[in-house]
């Protein structure tokens, strides 16, 4: 490892400790590695480029007014392109997913951070990791073949219109919720564990119970991390494809009713891009326009969540 030194090569003064050849090699290597780093920028640019061309072409034919309204029937004749149908469909599934995932995820996080013995943690954490690693097509299959029939059986009569439809938003919602629980649980637990012990001890010293400490001291202190995890969960839910394709249906429907069939942005893209459409047609371009909407939605949420994570990290460091 010792580089050959050219001691005395320069006559007086300090001997150089580097061999001249390695300098040039260093620059080349740095350049090569920088290219690897630049690939991420290239990828983002590529995504934008892939989306933008057809989207611009799309808006050449479809007005903004029509796009930002309801009535999404691109494959009908004549086609209508009101994107709210599929945006609200996505929000429908996301909403019910979070209604399930937030209490479960936070409950698990508080338990792991404040109550669990090391033995319990050793068992529960890998389980959450396994849940996080289950492929979404498996969760989608579970939602459509197990959850859907059960909901249809258990749902009370005609409540909210009755659940006797071939696909239900809430089946997909529960599947997505199951997928999101590990995200919320692990990030919130990290945030709560990072709260300094001093805060807890102070509260205990004042006679607070464990439950009070957990809810009144630790939870608020870790709040931005917890909110970040929820925002990240929402972002994942919005971008989820397979679960909605399999369980929620293909009926664009601007409703938040859990027992309706809806179509999410992602399922529209998946089903249409693999179906019978010709390149260059307005329906093909609609796929890219929908993709742009999806990209912007998740981008906004990611930026928010990154800011929040940075904020909670700063407070304690």
């Amino acid at each position, binding site marked *: 490892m010792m580089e050959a030194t050219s001691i005395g090569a320069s006559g007086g003064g300090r001997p150089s400790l580097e061999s001249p050849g390695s300098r040039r090699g260093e620059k080349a290597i740095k350049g090569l590695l920088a290219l690897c780093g630049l690939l991420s920028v290239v990828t983002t640019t590529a995504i934008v480029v892939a989306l933008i061309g057809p989207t611009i072409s799309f808006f050449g034919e479809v007005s903004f007014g029509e796009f930002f309204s309801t009535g999404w029937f691109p494959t009908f004749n004549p086609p209508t392109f009101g994107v709210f149908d599929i945006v609200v469909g996505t929000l429908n599934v996301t909403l019910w997913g979070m209604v399930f995932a937030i209490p479960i995820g936070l409950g698990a996080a508080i338990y792991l951070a404040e*109550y669990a013995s090391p033995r319990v943690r050793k068992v529960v954490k890998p*389980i959450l990791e396994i849940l996080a690693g289950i492929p979404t097509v498996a969760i989608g299959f579970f939602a459509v073949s197990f959850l859907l029939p059960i909901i249809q059986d258990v749902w009370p009569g005609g409540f909210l219109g009755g659940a006797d439809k071939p696909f239900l938003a809430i089946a997909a919602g529960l599947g997505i919720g199951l997928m999101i629980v590990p995200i919320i649980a692990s990030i919130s637990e990290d945030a709560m564990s990072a709260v300094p012990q001093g805060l807890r001890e102070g509260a205990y010293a*004042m006679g607070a119970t464990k439950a009070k400490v957990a809810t009144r001291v630790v939870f608020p202190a870790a709040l931005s991390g917890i909110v970040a995890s929820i925002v990240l969960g929402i972002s994942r839910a919005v971008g989820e494809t397979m679960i909605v394709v399999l369980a929620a249906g293909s009926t664009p429907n601007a409703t938040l009713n859990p027992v309706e069939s809806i179509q999410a942005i992602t399922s529209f893209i998946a089903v249409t891009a693999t179906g019978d459409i010709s390149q260059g047609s307005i329906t093909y371009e609609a796929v890219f326009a929908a993709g742009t909407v999806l990209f912007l939605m998740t981008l906004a949420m990611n930026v928010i969540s990154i800011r929040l994570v940075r904020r909670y990290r700063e407070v304690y460091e």
Partner: protein
Amino acid sequence: MESSVPPTERARFAVAGARANVAAALGSQPRADVTRNNLFAGLLFVSILIALAGLVALLAQAFIDGAPALSTKLITEPPSTIDTANAGFRPALIGSVVMIAFVIGMIVPLGVGAAIYLEEYADSTRWWNRVIELNIQNLAAVPSIIYGILGLGLIVRGPLDLGFILFAGAMTLALLVLPIVIIAAREAIRAVPPSIREGSLALGATQWQTIRRQVLPAAIPGVATGVILAVSRALGETAPLLLVGATVFVTADPMPFDGNYSALPVQIFQYATRPQADFQTLAAAGIILMLVVLIAMNSVAIWLRNRYEQKW
């Protein structure tokens, strides 16, 4: 956390001390508080149980539905629409395996390279390095179907125009999971203590020699974990592959650069969308197959992580 003692111990001492004092001064703790505490803890534990129940139900249902089709035929036989009793996932499995091999080949050099650059060479106050970092963070959270659109628009068609071949699918997946590797590799490299680097440099090594001979070997376990996590993700991804052409019925084993291909999660999805009961059974069996492969890989990852956790 400043102390090395597990927090619950200290907290217990504190609670005991405080309670003793308060009890001595004010009498015993009201019953209501105790029950409320226990109720709360119970409620929290229930949420863990619910999550666990969901996981168990998912696995159980896959096993129960797929049990009739479980046999070695799943691995050796091609898919079939006419002979569902003897159908299997062979081309899809081989397609997935070959794709994963390509993905690893792409994400290891690119991911580790990017991580080295960001951790060792890049001046994080320069704006272009911050742009790179921001891009990686964003890309890690872009929906997978957007990567499918990228693949469809630019890799399969567009400038690269590779056609609907297996390698195009591998490239799409590699781009999707690359941020995972970069983030994990950065953490691993960051965990190497500065003293190691400084010692090496003091002895006259160049920066690259330091990285190559000292930092990287120490970071390999963390990098390997990241690669395995990325590969697990890639193995289970369906949506992007749907858009870059893995949706074909093939009975022959796929070739990487020519002709049509299939992948395990896509094949499962195709079976799952066909109404006949036989196909539903096959889909469930395929899920079991995929879960077995994934659990094996993740077990290796956890084992690697435990085995190589270095304490400096």
